[in-house]
């Protein structure tokens, strides 16, 4: 049976909500948490990857256990455990005042992301030929020096596309932060939808903003890949390089 719908899609409402301050504020929250968590996640992830490929059994085991835990449990559980759990466990005002929703969100997402970034960075490191390490060492570099100056810069190029994936995933996954009371884009739309009953219109608005962010980000990522491929024979074409090429009269 298909009932006559009482709630009908009204495209005009999409415009009303598209630039509503509540939605834009929520978009800003989404961006802040995603970018901060990603930056912290990349740094910690690279450190973990270096630990994991190192010959020191203590370091590699520690990194392995870290990845095992943070990758092996859902982020929603991690949020509940480390936000409410810690607040319940540590009944001190100084802790509760500082362990805010926003900080907890950034830190827990960063810790979670680090586990995935560790695997991406490890794949990047393993993609660099072993001869590179031997060559660096023959020049008198220590393991860490060789890692920093020779291996990681080359690994970076392999890491960019999967890291881009991770950022897009974080951007969208921030909606689970609703469990600890953070209102980001998806849930701002849900809350507005619940009070106005303009459900599909608000979800359209949220989808629009996600796509705007992802589009801008993808253009940036393509540029970054082009820059990192500077020494390669077949440089990838990007939107900008094509525009510049056409304007400069270059023949395609």
């Amino acid at each position, binding site marked *: 049976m298909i*009932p006559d*719908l009482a*709630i009908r899609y009204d495209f005009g409402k999409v415009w009303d909500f598209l630039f509503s301050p509540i939605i834009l504020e929520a978009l800003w929250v989404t961006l802040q948490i995603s970018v901060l968590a990603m930056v912290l996640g990349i740094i910690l992830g690279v450190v973990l990857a270096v630990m994991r490929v190192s010959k020191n059994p203590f370091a590699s085991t520690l990194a392995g256990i870290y990845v095992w835990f943070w990758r092996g449990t859902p982020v929603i559980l991690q949020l509940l455990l480390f936000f*409410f759990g810690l*607040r319940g466990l540590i009944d001190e005002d100084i802790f509760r005042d500082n362990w805010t929703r926003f900080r907890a969100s950034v830190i827990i997402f960063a810790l979670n992301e680090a586990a995935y970034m560790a695997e991406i960075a490890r794949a990047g490191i393993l993609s660099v030929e072993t001869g590179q390490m031997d060559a660096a060492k023959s020049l008198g570099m220590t393991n860490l020096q060789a890692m920093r100056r020779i291996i990681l810069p080359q690994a970076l190029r392999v890491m960019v596309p999967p890291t881009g994936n991770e950022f897009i995933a974080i951007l969208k996954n921030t909606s689970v932060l609703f469990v600890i009371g953070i209102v980001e884009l998806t849930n701002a739309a849900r809350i507005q939808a619940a009070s106005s009953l303009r459900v599909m219109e608000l979800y359209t608005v949220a989808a629009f903003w996600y796509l705007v962010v992802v589009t801008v980000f993808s253009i940036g990522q393509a540029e970054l890949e082009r820059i990192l491929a500077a020494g390669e024979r077949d440089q990838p074409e990007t939107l900008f390089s094509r525009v510049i090429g056409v304007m400069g009269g270059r023949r395609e």
Partner: protein
Amino acid sequence: MPRLFRTVLTLCIVALAAAFVFAACNDDDDGGDDNGGGVSGVPELEDGVLNVGSDIAYAPFEFYEEGTTTPDGLDIDLAEAIAAQLGVEIEFLNIGFDGIIPSLDVGDFDVLISAMTITDERSEVIDFVPYITVGTGIVVPAGNPDGITGVADLCGKTVAVQIGTIQVDILEAQNASCAEEINIVIFDTNPVAVEDVRTGGSDANFSDFPVAAEDAALSDGTLEVVDTQIDPEPYGLGVRKTSSELKTALADALQAIIDNGIYAGILADWGLEAVALQ
């Protein structure tokens, strides 16, 4: 060896797929058969089943019995009594509170019973049959450190509430007359909002009075409920505006269980005689 492995893998996948298909078929069967008594003249009840939607995380109105997946609560008991009065089976669908009205609208189920206060905005979209009268309650940490006695005292405080509830509206309305605004923190479900108060994230939780009282009672003395009920309003059974026969049937069945005393008995079972329809 690789061949054997491939054969085994293929068999496993086929078996798994078959299991899913058969499980799906069984589901269909459960819904359809062994329900002899349909209700003629009411299209939604012709298959002999009353399909009910509810956000089952709001004790004592609707919740799962501890350690089970059996819904229980005042709303659940009333819905079951109404279904029995109509002579039909009942099936519950658990759905998030903010999704209930849209879900009813598209026909996922036919009646909503989910501790829903009748409001003008909601009445524009669906029809209601009033069944109990309930006000809002405030949950605060034990000892009531901020000395909260009513909505006006919440100005400048952080208050945890559930998405889509009338409590969000009450707080937003109050904000208009606050010198310092209420920081309204919205959660998916009410139990998480209560947990936020318990762990010091918010100063108070705002929910329907019986829910607030239950949460305080179950908190091992860490929470208490402020002893005033705010704005008692009727709750409604919600139906689509096109379900006029169903609405009449539900109203008649409700009146019948009020008349024969079953209604009063259920309220008494939950210690909630005070919420009887006024």
